[in-house]
């Protein structure tokens, strides 16, 4: 694992909540300018891994962002370096309008956020139609789009996505994943996506890691993992 190919390098990452240990020494990397998928069942530690990267839980181990250590920094400092996190449950501000949600995304950025909003409408035209609407009235898919757009307002270099497919119809998920591809191509963003829905994630990812009870049990190119007999039976369901 080297800085040249991996924007984020994670080495022997341990983390947990109070006395409960959740992650037991993870090693993985996020591919530069691509999608990396972190797969696993409920409770495997996927969400905790993202929180560990964002500095929301206590950790030991090393996390390098573009070669520089970010472990131990405050969450807002990590965000300021270009790590955007769409949390578990999307973190949509239901009472605020679509516009206000997007403005919040650019909270720490000085200057007019409108050009960035226009940029987002390029990817997500549906959000433009819903501009003044309360975010709580959006459909699940639109809320997911809003959450991603909000995170992209700061021009992050790394986007952390926690189960973007959660509660959405497969068709919508495919649409969102297709847009993610466009975003990578246009902005050079790297994405780490956490998913229970392995087949969808493997279809768009370059690399994938399989997490089981806080340990990585398999890693490699997404194409290879998709072909793996054991994975197919346990996670892909055919």
């Amino acid at each position: 694992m080297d800085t040249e190919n991996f924007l984020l390098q994670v080495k022997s990452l341990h983390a947990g909540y109070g006395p409960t240990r959740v992650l037991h020494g993870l090693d993985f990397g996020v591919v530069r300018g691509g999608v990396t998928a972190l797969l696993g069942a409920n409770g495997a530690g996927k969400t905790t891994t993202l929180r560990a990267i964002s500095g929301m839980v206590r950790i030991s181990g090393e996390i390098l962002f573009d070669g520089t250590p970010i472990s131990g920094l405050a969450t807002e400092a990590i965000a300021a370096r270009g790590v955007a996190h769409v949390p578990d449950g999307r973190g949509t501000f239901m009472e605020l309008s679509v516009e206000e949600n997007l403005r919040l995304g650019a909270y720490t950025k000085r200057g007019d956020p409108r050009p960035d909003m226009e940029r987002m409408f390029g990817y997500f035209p549906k959000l433009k139609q819903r501009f003044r609407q309360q975010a709580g009235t959006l459909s699940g898919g639109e809320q997911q789009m809003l959450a991603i757009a909000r995170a992209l307002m700061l021009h992050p270099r790394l986007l952390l996505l926690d189960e973007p497919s959660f509660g959405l119809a497969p068709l919508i998920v495919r649409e969102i994943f297709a847009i993610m591809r466009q975003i990578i191509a246009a902005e050079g963003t790297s994405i780490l996506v956490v998913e229970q829905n392995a087949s969808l994630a493997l279809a768009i990812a370059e690399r994938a890691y399989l997490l089981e009870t806080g340990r990585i049990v398999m890693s490699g190119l997404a194409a290879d993992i998709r072909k793996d007999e054991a994975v197919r039976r346990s996670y892909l369901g055919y």
Partner: protein
Amino acid sequence: MHAHITRFGPLLFIVLAAVLPLAFASGYQLFQLTLVVAYALSVLGLNLVTGYNGQVSLGHGAFYAVGAYVTAIMMDRWDVPYWATLPVSAVVCAVFGFLLGMPALRLGGVYLALTTFALAVAVPQLLKYKLIDGWTGGVQGITIIKPDAPYDLPLTSDQWVYLFSLAVGVLMFALASNLVHGRIGRAMVAIRDQPIAAEAMGIDIARFKTLTFATSAMFTGIGGSLAAIAVQFVSPDSFTVALSVTFFVGMVIGGAASIWGAVFGALFIEFVPNIADHLSKAAPGAIYGVILIAFMFLAPGGIASLLRRWFARLAVK
């Protein structure tokens, strides 16, 4: 229709609030209305931190007391004019809120509620403390003189104090309205509703909460200052725990996370106890309780949200 209400409503309200009482209200009624302004500012302060930012405080009576005492002490000891005490009161309360908020806000939810409650319990006794009774007047408190209207204006003292308080109130409400409808207000709501997402967007939550707490203390403190000027008297026993709880009632009944809610809440806490007293001399508390519960049923989300729904329906028609 709706747009007109939101644009001209506040202006019309201010004009009526200034003119009608001068024409019709008695001295005592003017005094009551002045207290409504003071309460409205206090509830507004609580609303900023609890309604908008989601930090429950059961101790805002303490900031009200500090504001009232700052004004009373300055007027009594140093003959400072009443109006000049307000900025000082604002700064003192903001600093007090900031220092208190720093450690207290590390505790979330019910623990913060208890910590602030403890503050409300402690303050009346601290005000009686021997070492400072040269300033505070100990148990006796401080009596101050009600200001007269300046420039030989043809107004009674009650009328002038009411108008002055109303002007301060309007200014502070405009300030709060700008605050919550802009960038800072969005961040306040973001921290309340989605702390993890807010943090991930780069908002320094701890710092932000502390600053909100300080701002909130400042609003409530100015409310206390206005009340001291109107009542012409402060004493430790005017600022018991019940006062903090009353502000909380005003915030919920008026409408949490609503600027106008603070006005309705203040009207409620000033006048409903009187109404309950009129209805039953024997058990005003029980009547007050029933009215309180009735409001919760009829206007869940507060009076402000009930009115908002009515206006929205009018706008559709």
